[in-house]
């Protein structure tokens, strides 16, 4: 089996991503997913699309699918900060706060402090660290 060979312009891919963001903001998740799936046909392996798709699944508690999409996003672009910060949130939800801390520290170190994802990661880091403290306290 092979993929369709579509030569779409970057602008086309972007308009699909922006439309999916709008559907996402309106909680029209099914439409957002369909649009992103179409964008992936145009631009297979695109890390930004996988990061958006991951966030979309995550918002619907489809955690395995979200994790898989974050993996794909980070495979193509290890510096994709949204996917990394969201994956950290997912790790916390799965009780892996130590792993989440590593991810969040990496986002904070690698990106501009004015980046909103960095600000969010700092907040998440506090939460993750308090979870670890609570866990070690309970164990000790």
């Amino acid at each position, binding site marked *: *089996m*092979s*993929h*369709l060979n*579509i*030569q*779409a*312009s970057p*602008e*086309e891919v*972007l*308009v*699909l*991503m*922006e*439309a999916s*963001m*709008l*559907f*996402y903001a309106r909680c029209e998740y099914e*439409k957002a997913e*369909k*649009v*992103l*799936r*179409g*964008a*992936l*046909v*145009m631009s297979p392996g695109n890390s*930004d699309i996988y*990061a*958006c798709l*991951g*966030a*979309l699944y*995550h*918002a619907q508690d489809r955690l395995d699918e*979200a994790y898989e999409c974050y993996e794909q996003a980070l495979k193509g672009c290890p510096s*994709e900060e*949204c996917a990394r*910060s*969201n994956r950290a*949130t997912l790790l916390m939800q799965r009780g892996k706060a130590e792993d989440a801390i590593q991810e969040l520290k990496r986002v904070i170190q690698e990106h501009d402090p004015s980046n*909103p*994802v960095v600000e*969010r990661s700092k907040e998440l880091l506090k939460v993750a660290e308090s979870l670890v403290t609570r866990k070690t306290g309970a164990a000790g």
Partner: protein
Amino acid sequence: MKTQQPELQFRVLDRVVAQGRTRLESMFRETMSDLSQLSRESLDDEQRHELDSLLDAYRLVEELVMELVSLKEDLMLRARSESGRVRCRT
């Protein structure tokens, strides 16, 4: 809980809505023309699924753009009628 989405500023969508449906059509024209040359029978299952995904995505974006264009026109009409009313009063 809302997850963090990559930062997008709706630049392309903004332009499309400002310029109307024809802008969207011209943006998609080349790809749509490529797609129209495909015959479904010659595609395997995966390719057919991809084709359907793409057509679905186009349809949804087109509907969204139409909705936004109509919203924009409605707002402009209201703004024009408001400014007309203000002018009548002065």
